[in-house]
């Protein structure tokens, strides 16, 4: 394993006159599987500044962290750069060839006092072709500089990889803090890098399993407010919410259908824990599994025709797939005595889930064509996988080494893993929003 640390602001003192104020950033630790590093090298040169204001955010650092987090790009530390150009005219391509860079991003910040907006002019070059791939200007109000950085990150990532960028998507998650009688659960959303978090709901009783609607405007989740579990649906922007299920027994594990019209969820109103489909107009659940064992954690396939779920009908939890139109479930996992919480890969060709091995709980995957099972993560207690909306990353919670709840990501091929720099104490159940329109 190799370790790469990306630290903001070393050696930048060389050009401190041109620099905006640096914001202290946590280290982003990236672990890359030996010999499997296929990430494309890109140099994000610290941006120049043509104004005297202190910008509240350090845009090139945010962009560097974003691109690193994508799993497809490898960014160069500013301390290793031989020159610090701020526009295309200043670039000596030899400097970047020597450093093995494939792409270079340069830019300059201006401030328009009249409109109270920062303006970033940026250019992206292909080093070997000496070709300008992007040249653009983007602006934002001082309070929206992170949005600007995410927007530019998306443009660069999409231009270089041809894959939609995820940097302006959002996470929903739950935190649990305190202990005893002072426990507080919070339903939160944040930027995809964990910054700019907002609280949507506070409760002294458990909140679980938030999931985004396919249009990214609403969340469903389970909440125990009042001492009994129920499923709620909440509009993110307005906070308006509605209780949509409170049956006797379990009300758990909601998953929004790809067409947005119904939910899969787990109820035990007819005896044991079974999976039901509940249309959001009628709110009348239709039972899909019928087995006295535990059947839960349903996940829609991307085409909406099947669902994966956890069942312990074999004597211990394993992953199954069943058609929405009926029929017998098919068992998919056979390695080990504990496989749970499946989520579909983007094309429906692969499932990711939590796999128990040697007393550890790790992220596993199974190829639906070949049946091949693999282990992707490597800590002690990992849980709650969530798929990136562009299908390149799996997000999960790790509780390794006494750390309580950090967010980790791995590329879907398992070749690179990252710990998100921003910590939210007691984090659990992350959900990734769809791509913004």
């Amino acid at each position: 394993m190799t370790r790469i640390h990306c630290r903001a602001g070393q050696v930048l003192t060389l050009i401190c006159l041109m620099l905006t104020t640096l914001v202290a950033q946590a280290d982003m630790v990236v672990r890359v599987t030996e010999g499997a590093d296929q990430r494309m090298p890109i140099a994000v040169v610290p941006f120049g500044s043509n104004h005297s204001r202190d910008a509240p955010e350090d845009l090139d650092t945010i962009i560097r962290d974003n691109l690193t987090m994508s799993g497809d790009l490898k960014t160069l530390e500013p301390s290793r750069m031989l020159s610090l150009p701020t526009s295309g005219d200043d670039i000596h391509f030899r400097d970047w060839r020597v450093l093995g860079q494939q792409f270079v991003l340069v830019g300059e910040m201006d401030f328009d006092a009249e409109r109270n907006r920062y303006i970033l002019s940026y250019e992206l070059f292909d080093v070997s072709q000496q070709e300008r791939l992007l040249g653009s200007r983007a602006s934002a109000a001082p309070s929206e500089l992170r949005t600007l950085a995410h927007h530019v990150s998306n443009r660069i990532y999409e231009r270089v990889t041809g894959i939609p960028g995820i940097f302006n998507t959002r996470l929903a998650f739950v935190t649990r803090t305190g202990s005893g009688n002072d426990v507080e659960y919070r339903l939160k959303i944040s930027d995809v890098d964990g910054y700019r978090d907002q609280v949507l709901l506070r409760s002294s009783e458990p909140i679980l399993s938030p999931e985004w609607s396919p249009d990214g405007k609403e969340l469903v989740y389970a909440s125990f407010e009042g001492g009994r579990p129920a499923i709620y649906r909440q509009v993110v922007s307005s906070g308006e919410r509605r209780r949509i299920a409170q049956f006797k027994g379990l009300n758990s594990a909601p998953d929004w259908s790809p067409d947005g019209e119904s939910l899969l969820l787990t109820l035990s109103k007819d005896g044991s824990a079974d999976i039901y489909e509940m249309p959001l107009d009628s709110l009348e659940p239709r039972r899909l599994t019928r087995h006295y064992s535990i059947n839960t954690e349903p996940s829609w396939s991307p085409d909406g025709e099947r669902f994966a779920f956890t069942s312990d009908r074999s004597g211990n939890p394993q992953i199954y797939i069943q058609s929405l139109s009926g029929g017998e479930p098919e068992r998919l996992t056979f390695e080990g005595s504990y496989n749970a919480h499946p989520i579909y890969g983007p094309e429906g060709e692969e499932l990711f889930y939590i796999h128990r091995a040697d007393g550890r709980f790790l992220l596993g995957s199974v190829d639906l064509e070949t049946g091949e099972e693999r282990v992707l993560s490597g800590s002690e207690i990992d849980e709650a996988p969530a798929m990136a909306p562009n299908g390149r990353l799996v997000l999960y919670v790790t509780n390794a080494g006494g750390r309580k709840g950090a967010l980790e990501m791995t590329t879907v091929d398992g070749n690179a893993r990252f710990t998100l720099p921003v910590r939210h104490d007691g984090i659990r159940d992350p959900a990734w929003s769809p791509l913004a329109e």
Partner: protein
Amino acid sequence: MTDLLKNRVLMLGFALLFVAGCSSTATEPEGSGSNGMEESDMEQQGDSDADSSDAYGAGDGSGVSEEDMTAEERAQKSLDQAKEKAMQAASTIYFDFDSSEIRRESQSILEAHAAYLAEDDDASVVLEGHTDQRGSREYNMALGERRAESVARFLRVNDVSEDQIETVSYGEEQPAVEGNDEEAWAENRRVEINYE
């Protein structure tokens, strides 16, 4: 939490005593008693529970035979004993990892609770299922439910009525003990029996 629970159990105990006292009169409205007798009976009990025979004697001379009273007293006594046993019995049942099977050593505990619940129709319990923090949160929610159901089934088999039992699962959300080792996990895999 535990103090609070103890208080609750104690208060429930008193409440149940009172209810039991009332119901011994309230459940025989078709017998001999008039409304007047029942009222005085209750007042008497409120003042002192020593002279219950006087109270019956004074309240109404006819239709209450000595035999009936003895049977009732006997029933009351056995109810009290059952309740005392149930209250003294542990109120937490523990489980193995990923299991909802009731261990042999838990059976006598549950039998004590069942004996009391079977005898007193007015008593009811909420069975709270819990798991340790490992594994998948939603699977654990279902596992907690199955543990609570497993205890509920044991009680039902032992003559406790369906209406006296409610189950709720908290999964891994409310650990009895915070901690990340086998000792903590073992204490968290449990069903708590709470009298309402």
